[in-house]
């Protein structure tokens, strides 16, 4: 138990996670109370499954909390702490931000332009140092995908700003 300190951070995260699971259970139980009974006779109504899931999540969350407090799983805590030490929040946070912007831009800007912008930006967030190469890859990839999907697979992708010049 000499490495209790490294494990501290991991245990804290494990406890928070168990509370989230308990919270999900409560959400399911509250959601279950909002389900209407439905017309006609059914042996098992629509409320049963959400209730069982809610109770299950609540119980599992409590057990996880016990496991992280009363009899801590130090092995796990150390692993989580090691994971935390080896990682940082900025890169995944920025990546997620870029993703959401990309999705929002798809419709109005169009598939080709949005992808051509997103790919080099995301690559540079992830540590790429060769923006020109990334941009070329992005343009080629998005044009090939766009034409492949719309012409050969019959899947419509948004043309956006390039609508006047695309086939």
């Amino acid at each position, binding site marked *: 138990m000499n490495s209790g300190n490294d494990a501290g951070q991991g245990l804290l995260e494990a406890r928070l*996670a168990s509370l989230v699971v308990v919270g999900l259970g409560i959400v399911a139980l509250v959601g279950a109370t909002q389900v209407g009974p439905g017309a006609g006779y*059914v042996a098992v109504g629509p409320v049963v499954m959400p209730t069982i*899931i809610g109770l299950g999540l609540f119980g599992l969350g409590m*057990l996880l909390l016990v496991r992280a407090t009363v009899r801590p799983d130090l092995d796990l805590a150390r*692993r989580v702490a090691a994971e935390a030490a*080896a990682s940082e929040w900025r890169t995944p946070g920025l990546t997620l931000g870029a993703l959401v912007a990309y*999705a929002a831009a798809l419709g109005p800007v169009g598939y080709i332009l949005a992808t051509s912008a997103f*790919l080099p930006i*995301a690559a540079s967030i992830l540590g790429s140092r060769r923006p020109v190469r990334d941009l070329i890859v992005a343009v080629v990839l998005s044009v090939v995908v766009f034409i492949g999907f719309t012409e050969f697979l019959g899947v419509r992708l948004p043309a956006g700003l390039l609508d006047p010049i695309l086939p």
Partner: protein
Amino acid sequence: MDVLTSLAGGFATALQPEYLLFAAAGVTLGTLIGVLPGIGPALTVALLLPLTYSFDATGAFIMFAGIYYGGMYGGSTTSILLNTPGESASIVTTIEGFQMAKAGRGGPALATAAIGSFVAATISTVAITFFAPVVAQAALAFQPADYFALMVVAFVSVSALVGRSLLRGATSLFVGLLIGVIGIDVLTGQARLTFGVTELLDGLDIVVVAVGLFAVGEALSVAARLRREQAEVIAVKGRAWMSRDDFRRSWPAWIRGALIGFPLGSLPAGGAEIPTFLSYNLEKRLSKHPEEFGTGAIEGVAGPEAANNAAFSGVLVPLLTLGLPTSATAAIMLAAFQVYNLQPGPLLFQNSPELVWALIASLYIGNVMLLALNLPLIRVWIKILEIPRPLLYSGILVFATLGVYSAANSLIDVLFMYGIGVLGFFMRRLDFPVGPVVLGVILGPLLEAQFRRAMSISQGDLSVFVTRPLSAVILTFAVAVVIVPYLPRIIARLRGRRSPEGRLVFGEDD
């Protein structure tokens, strides 16, 4: 109808030039995506699912069979050369495979994996051909109570046998069940857990969940570590081929791996993790060179890779005959069937025999194609491993978005997918397995439907599940699955010795 006649009919369909092209496209795409590090067959199938929407059902499933097998072949390459298993069943391959690659024997390791996969998959496909129709015939007598019991077995074994802890596996499963219950209840038309959000009325699509968890979750967790870690790709010297001695040591391991993998994979308690671990331990025990284990013994790659492929084929038996997926990949395959309004199960063999037999025939064809793709062309696939990480993961995010967006042209689906990706990120960080979530999403509604059907038949009497002999036996089996991993500890305690640490653990997560 005779099995061989049906199979011949299947080949007649699958050998048409158009369908051969679909099979070739499937195995190539499957290998291409499967060889990308961190991407297993489950994600490969989920990403490529929307591509097949414009095809007819037979063509789509022939392509799927190719993607399914191709993803597995591709996965072994990353395990051996990068020490990055794409999914849990490849973990064992990394033990000896990566050591062999480091010792300059990457070529023989890749060759034994590819030929072993071919041998095992062919044996298993023959087994499917003769075994699946028998199971389908027997399954005609199954009642809803029995299906319910089978699904309980699948749930229990996924939580108990996958991942390090029963508690964490069960939590993941319940999160999946929670996601699965969102939307309109088919029986009563009531909205459940939508909290007034109109977009949730149709529920969350399995592709949204799987791509979010596997692609976005994986990319985000790689992003968190990327600046501090460097992965090394090991160059392969020489050809991907084996010496006479390698071959002599490999072939019994292939056969044994296939014989372990197929039966265990086809049990409803399936999954491919356990057979690979069993095969590894067996090879270690039987080997004439036990001292080589841990430093690159070829049997330790040959056996588990064969077991992995055989188990993956075995998983198709409960999927096709009972409609019961037992792995995350199978769950996504089931979703694909649902897209085409096909319900896998005993009736599939009666109602759509052309499709089933064309699918089975294309498994044979796909295997031959994969052997051809993987032995001479292995260098091409290795090139893919050299794509710089930042570009690779940005590309994965682009394709994840494309896969979900193109399925329904819906921005909200994409945002849900990202949200689930964040969930997957935290689950990875906190060591929760993600495979059971996918299984929970697809199996939860099926379980509920069978439960309700059984209860309607019994007019609300819960005892139907234990009074029907078949379902009682199956449920007893489920209880056994929970207890067995703890047996060593219980026995030790009964004998009054100090208990060994923990329980038996087979895989990590999917």
